[in-house]
C-alpha cells in the first residue's frame, strides 16, 4: 500500500502531527518498550556465540575477506582460533560439574585432606581464621578479596602440636570471599563454611563480618 500518492507535495502544516498526539504516542511507546525485558547474560552470550559460529561458517563459504589481501591470513587465523577455542557448551558444563563436585561438602582437593576451619570475629573487626589439616603441610596462606588473592600477603602461622594454622586480620564489615593455599599451589576450601562456587574459577568460602554494612 503506497502512501506517497500522486498529489502535489503536501504543505508542512499538512504533515504536522498534533503535538498532543505525538506526546501521547511517545509515552505509550516508551511504556511498551519498557515492558520488553532486558536480555539475560545467558541470552547475550548465546547470541554472540551463535553469530560468531555462523560468521565463521559464512566466511569460509563466501570468502568475504577477499577485500584486502592480508585479510585472508587474518581470517584463517580467526577460523583456527574459533575452531580451537573451547566455546562448545559441553566444555563449560564439564568444568562446572567438576568444580561443583569439589565444593559439594566433600573436601576440595585430595581425599586425604579433610580440613576443618573456624572463623571467629574479635573486637575491632579483627577476624580470626583457623584451619586444621590432618596431613602435614609446609606453608599455608590465607587468600581472599581483602588481600588481592595474593598467597604471599597473609601467610598463616602454625600453632600447637597438630597441624593447626591460624591468621588474623582486620576486615571491613560485610561479605568477604576467601580460600586457603597449601604449599603455594594447592587451593582448599573449608567444607563447612558457606560455599562461594564458581564454575569457571573454582570454589571459595564466604565470611560475613558484623557491623553496619
Amino acid at each position: 500500500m503506497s502512501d506517497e500518492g500522486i498529489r502535489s507535495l503536501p504543505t508542512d502544516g499538512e504533515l504536522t502531527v498534533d503535538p498532543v498526539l505525538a506526546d501521547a504516542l511517545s509515552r505509550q511507546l516508551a511504556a511498551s518498550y519498557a515492558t520488553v525485558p532486558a536480555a539475560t547474560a545467558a541470552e547475550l552470550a548465546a547470541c554472540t556465540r551463535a553469530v560468531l559460529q555462523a560468521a565463521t561458517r559464512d566466511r569460509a563459504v563466501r570468502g568475504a575477506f577477499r577485500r584486502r589481501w592480508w585479510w585472508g591470513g587474518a581470517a584463517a587465523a580467526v577460523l583456527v582460533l574459533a575452531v580451537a577455542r573451547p566455546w562448545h557448551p559441553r566444555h563449560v558444563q564439564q568444568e562446572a560439574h567438576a568444580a561443583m563436585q569439589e565444593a559439594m561438602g566433600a573436601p576440595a582437593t585430595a581425599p586425604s585432606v579433610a580440613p576443618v576451619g573456624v572463623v571467629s570475629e574479635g573486637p575491632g573487626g579483627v577476624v580470626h581464621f583457623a584451619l586444621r589439616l590432618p596431613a602435614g603441610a609446609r606453608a599455608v596462606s590465607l587468600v581472599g578479596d581483602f588481600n588481592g588473592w595474593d598467597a604471599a600477603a597473609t601467610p598463616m602461622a602454625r600453632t600447637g602440636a597438630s597441624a593447626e594454622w591460624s591468621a588474623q586480620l582486620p576486615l571491613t564489615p560485610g561479605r568477604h570471599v576467601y580460600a586457603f593455599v597449601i604449599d603455594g599451589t594447592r587451593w582448599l576450601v573449608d567444607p563447612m563454611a558457606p560455599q562461594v562456587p564458581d564454575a569457571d574459577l573454582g570454589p571459595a568460602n564466604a565470611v560475613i563480618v558484623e557491623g553496619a554494612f
Partner: protein
Amino acid sequence: MTDAELVRRTRSGDQEAFGRLVVRYYDACRRFAYHMLGERADAEDVVQESLLRAYLALGRYDERDQFRGWLFRILTNQCRNALTSRGRRSRRFVSDDIALDAAPAPAPLATGVEDRLVLRALAQLDPLQREAVLLKYAEGLDYTEMARMTGAGESALKMRVKRGSERLRQLLGPAWQAPGEDGHE
C-alpha cells in the same frame, strides 16, 4: 571504550570486543524488532540475523558513522524482509473495518498489558508507517536521521508518521485519557 574502538578490535579478530557490542545493543535492537514484528521469537531471530550481517559487514563500516545508526539500518532492513516473507505466507492484514469490530475494546491502561495493546495496534499499520512511527516516537530520531536510515525522503517519512499516528489514535485513543478539547492547533 567507544563503539569505534570495539569495532576496530573486532575487525582484528577480537571476539571479546564483539561480545561487548552485542551486550551494548542487543536490548535496543530487540525492543524495536519486537514492536515491528509483534512476536518475540521472530524479533530474536531478526536481531541475531542483523548482528550476523553487521559482523560480516564490519569491513564496510565507516567509523565516522554512528554505530547504532548503522546497526539499526541493518535491523530495519531485516525487519522489512521478515515482514515481506511473512506476508507472502499468510495474509495477516484484514480490511480495516472488520479489524476494528473484531478487536476487543481496548482495556484501560494497566502495567503489563500495554505491550499487547500497542503491538496489536501497530500490527494494523502499514509496515512502512509502523517503522516510521517507531523510529520517530520510540527511537526518538529526527527526520534527517530517519531519511538516512531508510533511504526515503523526508516528506515521505513525515507523511508515513502522520498517517500512522492518526491510525494509532483511532485504535488506541479510547484507552487514553481524553486529550483536552482545546489545545489542537
